[in-house]
Every structure is written in structure tokens, then in C-alpha cells.
């Protein structure tokens, strides 16, 4: 039902755009862009948006799992221990980072 409705709207927009063009009328910029960008890719993106408006493509999109730096799309990784002073949260008595040992 939803794809059919979207197709109908796009067809109307296209038809209206071409008619306006033929009549020598100028389209509003938004409508012009909508007509110009109608494509399968756009339709696919619309279908992938859930009811909350959030993309279902996953929040790791653009994040390379092998990228240790995280990448700009993933957010900057926290500074490793020793590189900066610990957060001033009042928990550390001497302001120094913990000394870690792991085996």
C-alpha cells in the first residue's frame, strides 16, 4: 500500500512538473528538487525509515569495525590512560590515572 502511494505521489509530482515546464512555469525549488531526485534509491530510503523516523540502517553505518581510531562517524575514542589527566569528578584523590595490570 505504502509503495503504491509513494509511486502515485511521485507520478503526480513528475506530471505536474512536466506540465508546468511545458507551460513555461517555474517550479518552486523544493518541488523541483523532489522531481529531480525521484529514484529507486530515494524510495528505498523512505521505506527504511521506521515509525519513529529513525533510519533502520543501523547506528554503526559508516563505522569501520577494523578502525581502531573509531573514525569521525563513530565519534572520537576517549583519550587512553596517561595521555590526559582523569576526569575532574572528585573521585581520584591525587588526580592521577589508575595503574592497571591485566593478565
Amino acid at each position: 500500500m505504502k509503495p503504491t502511494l509513494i509511486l502515485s505521489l511521485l507520478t503526480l509530482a513528475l506530471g505536474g512538473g512536466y506540465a508546468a515546464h511545458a507551460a513555461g512555469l517555474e517550479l518552486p525549488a523544493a518541488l523541483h528538487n523532489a522531481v529531480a531526485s525521484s529514484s529507486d534509491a530515494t524510495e528505498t530510503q523512505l521505506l527504511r525509515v521506521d515509525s519513529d523516523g529513525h533510519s533502520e540502517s543501523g547506528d554503526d553505518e559508516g563505522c569501520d569495525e577494523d578502525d581502531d581510531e573509531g573514525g569521525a562517524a563513530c565519534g572520537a575514542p576517549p583519550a587512553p590512560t596517561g595521555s590526559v589527566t582523569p576526569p575532574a569528578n572528585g573521585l581520584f584523590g591525587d588526580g592521577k590515572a589508575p595503574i592497571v595490570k591485566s593478565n
Partner: protein
Amino acid sequence: MQIKTLLSALAMTTAMTLPGLAFARPVTLTTNLANYGGNGAYLAIYVTDSSGAYAGSLWMAGGRTKYYRHLTDWTKYTGGNPAEVAGITGASVGSGQSLSLSLDLADKLFDAGYTLHIDAAAEDMRESPSEITVPLTAANSGKAVKGRRYISDFSYSF
């Protein structure tokens, strides 16, 4: 007379210095992981106060911020903000391994209603928010607290 003056000055400087020394104590946090058979576990070690409000983080084991959302209680408190663990981040901890942290903790945390939490998670395995919760008290020093999934036991001592 000179000795009396000297002794008075010494007493004053001692009185001014000693309170500063008593503000923190060296504490060792030891987390022994169970043999859960998965990838390295991310651990968030943090503290809440007597009203249950987030007080701050002590350590983050695991450096990729995109996985922090699986440490759900920590994320709930901090919004997943990496700045909360800037400078106190290390590697994730493997199955069956141990993590030992030596740090100076503020005296005010002990016997004042503060609670230490540890959230744990590993790739393709279930999240374990607040798998460890232990009140920070002098009486609990040296006592092992058992975990339920990733952590075999946790203890702190000073």
C-alpha cells in the same frame, strides 16, 4: 623561648598538612573474569552516590566508543559520553583474565553511601548492566563479590 616558637610553628604546619594527606587512600580494585568463552569483555567501573545519582567513572576497559552503548546502565547515566572516561581507558579484558587497578580514591567515597558498579558486555553476547554493585565501606574491603555472567568475582582493598 626560641624552642617554644619553633615547636608552635611545627605544630601549625603539621596541622595544615595532615588534613591534606587524609583526603585519599590507595585502593586496589581486582576484577576476575569468568571463563565465559567469548571475545574480550568491555567493563565500565563507576560510582553512584547515596541517592543513586551518578558520581563519576573510575575505569573503562575497552576503547571503541561504539560499543559503549552495550554498557547500558553506564550509558543511561552518562549518555555514553567518552569524556567521562578520558584518561582512564584501557584494553578490554579477556575471558578468564584478571584486571587489577591501583588508584588513590577520595576518602569521602567510603562509608558515605557510595556504591561501585561494574557494567559488562562482550560481542555477540548478552549485556550485563550493574553485574557488580558493592557499597564502598571499610567493612567491605577485602571481601569478594560474585558476578552473574562475565565476572567471577570482584573485590577492593586498601
